[in-house]
């Protein structure tokens, strides 16, 4: 603090106070409290004691850790599928399409995000459920004997997750593709490279930061999602957020719910950390890309 800057000091306090109230009151203290809650056990007469019972419960009850693993794996799978679809689309927008086509492709990518996730899920439900558009058409066209139920499958959940997070992958990918010098691609072909070797040795290394940024955000959104898995997966979703919600609302076992919440936070943070470490990036850069 420079001398003679009393006004500046007051300004600092006035700005810092609300920001600290926000960050401490709404983020830090609730998370610490959640961790503390998860280490409590309620005795028969309602008294509380420190214990690891909630975490033991997670490992002993197979339905809990199964749901946890399932959510982690499905989210990874959803991230991979999103990358596979977003990659060519972003490439097309950044390197192939020009002028009006490019503009319209960008608009087309944005439109689903003008609808809320609730609306997007409703759309998939109307398309895929037994009485919905696609099964009825398949039956009417004589391709199947009876209209199939296309909701409530794992593939349905994946479709919904990919759909809902596509933009968060496409945007950072377009960003890195645009900074890729076309001369490098030319050089690769001149030196005898083909499509695949160019992709692997030139494009992917250059795009790594964007790929990582997109994957981090998409994975976080998938793992923490509640709406899409429950609506598109129904009772067979077994998504971990649903397990958490169930503990808080249905069973009123908040200590158990707190432990599950913390475990989800650990999963999400661990994957983010690994992805950052693998690509040598910092979190700030990643979040600014999307």
């Amino acid at each position, binding site marked *: 603090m420079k001398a003679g800057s009393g006004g500046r000091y007051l300004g600092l306090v006035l700005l810092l106070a609300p920001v600290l109230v926000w960050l401490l009151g709404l983020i830090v203290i609730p998370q610490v409290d959640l961790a503390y809650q998860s280490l409590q056990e309620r005795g028969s007469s309602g008294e509380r004691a420190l214990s690891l019972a909630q975490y033991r419960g997670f490992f002993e009850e197979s339905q809990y850790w199964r749901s946890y693993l399932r959510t982690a794996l499905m989210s990874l799978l959803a991230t991979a599928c999103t990358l596979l679809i977003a990659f060519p689309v972003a490439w097309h927008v950044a390197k192939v399409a020009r002028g009006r086509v490019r503009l319209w492709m960008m608009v087309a990518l944005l439109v689903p995000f003008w609808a809320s996730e609730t609306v997007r899920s409703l759309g998939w439900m109307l398309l895929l459920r037994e009485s919905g558009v696609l099964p009825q058409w398949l039956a009417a066209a004589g391709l199947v004997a009876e209209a199939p139920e296309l909701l409530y499958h794992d593939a349905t959940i994946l479709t919904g997750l990919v759909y809902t997070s596509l933009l968060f992958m496409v945007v950072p990918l377009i960003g890195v593709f645009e900074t890729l010098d076309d001369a490098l*691609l030319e050089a690769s072909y001149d030196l005898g490279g083909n499509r695949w070797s160019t992709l692997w040795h030139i494009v992917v290394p250059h795009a790594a930061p964007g790929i990582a940024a997109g994957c981090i955000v998409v994975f976080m959104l998938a793992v923490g999602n509640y*709406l899409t898995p429950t609506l598109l997966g129904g009772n067979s979703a077994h998504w971990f957020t649903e397990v958490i919600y169930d503990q808080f609302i249905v069973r009123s076992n908040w200590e158990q719910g707190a432990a599950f919440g913390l475990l989800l936070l650990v999963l999400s943070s661990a994957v983010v950390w690994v992805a950052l470490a693998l690509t040598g990036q910092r979190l700030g850069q990643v979040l600014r890309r999307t």
Partner: protein
Amino acid sequence: MIPSLEPPRPVLGSVLLGAFLLFLFAPLLVVAVFAFNDAGYPAPPWRGFVLDWFIGNAARGRVGLLQDEALLGSIATSAVVALWVATLSVTLGTAAAWLLERMHFAGKSLLAALLLVPLVIPGVILGVSLLSLASGIAQVADERWGLDLDFLRPGLPLVICGQVSFMAAIATLTIAARLKRLDPGLEEAARDLGAGPWTGFRTIVLPYLRPTLVASAVVAFLMSFENFNTTLLLSGSDPPLTVFLYGRMREGATPVVNAVSLLLMLASALAAVLTRRRTPRP
């Protein structure tokens, strides 16, 4: 076009592009189409075009959107929440951005790191932790001092807090990025010319930031309107629109849900187009 790329295969390309566009638009299209179907449920077959799901009333046997009190109530709730969230997020975001870009103090790098934390915590966890803390405090206040702190129970104040907790961080990133590009020399010049810090802020910084502030507010408003994961646990007896719609969708929705969804899409598309036009290009 990159000249030495192998020649593209136009037929395959068009088919793939078409399939991709179908993937993007089919879900939204069915939502829109079945808002006008003359049937009690949003499913084929098509029975004819009606506006019942917008303007129908009980006398006609179908309660349309405009007569559905509970639905309209939840839209009003969402609007109130979104206004608060937009105002608070942009205010906090501006304060935090200013701290990051224009102030020097001990612990600034810690603050910068802390500002990213809300963005990596899953929304459900933000809701759960806030609910748990608030209920804990409310319970202690009730048992020790006999105070009934109603605002700490699930309801709109908690929904607003939960949404602000991460949207203010998004606003901070956007506003800080814009502030970084403003030459501090301009503010110094204003002060050299005799302006106090407040006058300098008002005449130089605020006009420069205004488009970004407006855009951040619109984004926060729309995201608040559409937020589900954080809101679900924190909302009480008067749920905002998304939570209300979720309940209806689980029960088996009538096309009224399609009607309100269609209006939502159109409204946010309009808002997006309007702000895009006003946002300065970097």
